[in-house]
């Protein structure tokens, strides 16, 4: 006769589960990855969501402009010029009889293009120069940082106007001018991040294992720079949109007959239009304001979402 051990369930809690069941439970358990935490935090940011929705709408309008715009944005009608909003022209017509709504929809294209492309270019410049300066330090750092200091002393809008004047107006040159002037801030940001990251133990480990500089920067350091850079780029897009609007407002941006929100605002230079024809300047003004505001909200949301110090 052997002694019967009492069942554990009865005296010491639940009976042990089979291994397979434990594995299944573990698999089903929610793993709180940094990405999902960031997404959760972003989705909780109501203004960021609002901004994202507005941006998606503007982005879709830009993408589908030829399909959804009621008229050709460049088509003139010199009989029905400066007409107030009607059923035929929901936002009225401009000084050349062009449909304001169609120009507003098409105007999203250069604004977003300039914002996205110029920022991509100058953030790339910043990654390269900031990485070199931060990782190698010494003379390389000194030279790059002094170049940054010099460029940062330029009054950027005036220099951009000067560059566009020399290169000639147009979408491409507007992008080039903005990219050439705005790379300094993110370069400092990248350099600052890399200065601290390069001292980390895992970087030291990679180096001691014989990792090459390029690989260490790419694989081990740059990923740590991405988050603040994305946030910076978001605000950069907003700034670039404003710069494009300013250049186009001065007739030095997007070339006619293409529409941009900035060159639509040019009409507002005349007092009679400011006072009596708000349909000519209010829609592009609102579009610029909404898009910049939305991008800033999204930037705020991203900053909070990517902030590793935040709980939840």
């Amino acid at each position, binding site marked *: 006769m052997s002694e019967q051990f009492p069942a554990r369930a009865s005296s010491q809690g639940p009976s042990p589960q089979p291994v397979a069941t434990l594995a299944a439970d573990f698999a089903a358990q929610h793993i709180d990855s940094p990405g999902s935490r960031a997404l959760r935090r972003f989705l909780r940011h109501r203004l960021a969501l609002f901004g994202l929705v507005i941006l998606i709408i503007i982005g879709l309008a830009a993408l589908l402009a030829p399909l959804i715009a009621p008229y050709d944005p460049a088509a003139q009608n010199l009989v029905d010029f400066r007409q107030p909003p009607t059923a035929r022209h929901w936002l009225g017509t401009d000084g050349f009889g062009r449909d304001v709504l169609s120009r507003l929809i098409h105007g999203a294209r250069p604004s977003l293009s300039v914002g996205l492309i110029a920022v991509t270019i100058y953030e790339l410049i910043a990654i390269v120069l900031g990485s070199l300066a931060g990782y190698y330090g010494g003379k390389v750092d000194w030279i790059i940082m002094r170049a940054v200091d010099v460029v940062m002393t330029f009054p950027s809008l005036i220099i951009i106007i000067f560059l566009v004047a020399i290169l000639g107006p147009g979408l491409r040159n507007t992008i080039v001018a903005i990219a050439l002037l705005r790379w300094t801030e993110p370069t400092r940001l990248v350099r600052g991040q890399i200065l601290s990251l390069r001292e980390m133990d895992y970087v030291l480990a990679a180096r001691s294992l014989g990792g090459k500089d390029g690989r260490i920067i790419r694989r081990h350091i740059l990923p740590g720079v991405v988050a603040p850079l994305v946030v910076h780029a978001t605000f950069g897009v907003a700034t670039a949109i404003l710069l494009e609007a300013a250049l186009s407002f001065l007739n030095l941006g997007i070339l006619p007959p293409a529409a941009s929100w900035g060159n639509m605002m040019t009409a507002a230079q005349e007092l009679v239009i400011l006072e009596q024809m708000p349909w000519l300047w209010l829609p592009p003004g609102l579009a610029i304001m909404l898009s910049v*505001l939305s991008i800033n909200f999204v930037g705020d949301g991203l900053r909070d979402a990517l902030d590793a110090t935040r709980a939840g």
Partner: protein
Amino acid sequence: MTIPKGGDPGNQFFIPSLTLTNDFIPRLRGDTLGGDKMSIKTRYLAVIALALVTILVACTAEPEVIVETVVQEVQVEVTRVVTETIIEEGQAVEVTRVVVETETEVVEVTAVPEEAAPAAEPPSEPQSGGDVRVWLPNGWPEQSWPHRSNWESGWAISPMAETLFWPLADGTLEPRLGTTVDVSEDSLVYTLHLREDVTWHDGEPFTAEDVAYSILLRNSPNLRPTNPPRNGTTISGLLPYANGEADSISGMEIIDDHTIQFTLDSPDAGLMRLFFGAEMLEILPQHIVSALDEEEVLNGTAEYWFTNPIGTGPYRFVQYQPDQFIEYERFPDHWSGAPGPDRLFMEISTAEVAVVKLQRGELDLINTLQLTEIERLQAEPGLEVMVAENNAQWYGMEMNYFTNDGLWRDPRAKQAFLYSIDRQAYVDSILQGQGLVRHSFFDGTVYECPTMVEYTYDPDRAAELWAEIGINPADVTIDLMSWLGLNARRDFLPIAQEFLGAQGFIVNVDFIDNSLITDYVQGNGPRGQDWDFHVLLFGPGADPGTILPFIDPESGNNWGRRSWPEAPNPETGQKENAYVYENPALTELIAQAKVETDPDRRIEIYQEIDCIWNNDLPAFMTASPSFVAAKSNRLQGVDWQTNAGLGFWLRMYRPEDLWIWDGS
């Protein structure tokens, strides 16, 4: 490794270096100050939305007419006829009498705005006192009188500086510092008589020495930048002097204090209006300017020009506040008598600010009103909008010298260009109907070609012409340029782009900053030498001889704003005219026009020149905008029709006639 507050030490992706940045930024936003981030943003949104709604309401609100109805008790006199029966002497007698009684009555009173009293008429005699405030667009860029090349700077000095004559639109000369001109029978000697009762603002007498000095300085080869002579080149020795080959002008001789004589190499019918009536020949005080530092005078950098310049005009200079105003005061010893107002201010501002100031009564005269403002200001009770037809200047398209040897050498291409564009629509929309389409250089003047072809919008005719010269529009790119400043000039290009695009061309439009004009037109701009046309303001001005510098090979002056080189062509050794344009018949007519002094024959010659221009179109005219000005009712003595007819550049006509009506 420090673990920051809220960080997750178990997170393998956790990057400590982020903690500083990301922890720091929220604190800056006020999170640690106890502020509610979301509510602050929501409040921002609400404020922005409120501001937008306010703008919308402000923009669309119509002035409300307040009609109020109130109930009032009023005392009313009531007259009644009362018939009473009285007993008199035992008999009933009917008596009728009138009774006036005062009663209180309740009435509804509706208050409506009083109708404006009919505008009072200004007194027939000018009044004394008050300040005149005149708009000065674009500031005072060229303060040195002999260096002046733009009209704004001429307008700025109009109250203090005077010329010899004004060329009026009716063909006559109005005397200013000059009185009469005697012309010899062979038309080679001009004797100019000067006004004798003129004193400078410092009390010194004005003499023929001042006139000679002014002509010498204006044409000096040592001026930097040079300001080559446009007119008077027929005066003996003027060109050698201007070219630095002589120390003086041999054909200019002072006869006495108030007489100066000019001897010509050949008759010159345009001399009277284009030289004696020259817009840019303000007479300088020799006793002052010759005592200044010579280098500074030649460079135009002498402070004298904006600290204490003196002239002979009805107002003398008081002070210049850069970017704000120029102040003048009444000159009591002016030859016409003292002007009425105490002071005259030239106020510098943008066009928009000028309109607002005019509406507020802070400005009295806007000399170039934006056309879009006409209708609005016409409705303002205290203002007057003045419109004068413009037969002196028009917008045109001038070809690039460097591409002028290609397609555009064929007159049919240029004719097709004009047929392609609905210029009347441009006049109706951009010029608000205040202007005329022009088809030739002298269109609308007595020198107009009698058989002038009108290039009215005709896309089919244009297409025929393109086909005739073998042009497939789809293969051709046309580059058009305008510099910024005048919206009416700039806005022709999008219209041209639309209409030429409809013909199948690829059309690029460049708007450039004013500072780049010279570089652009001379082939150093973003398109290099490969562009086609730029918009320009030009026209017959005060005399048909204005056309000669454009088509006469002897006039290689590009005035800094044109694309053609001033130096002779290295291959031919010859100077080329503005448009690299040759027509033997025209060359012959130019030679005749220069020397012909008989007015009737002169008209015939210029009509023939105009016919050739009309066909060959060395440059195109597009349309002429009317001269539109606006003034306050308090400013009197403005003769805008005459003022607008003074030639190519706008000058202030008879500033001594302006006066302020204090009862306005």
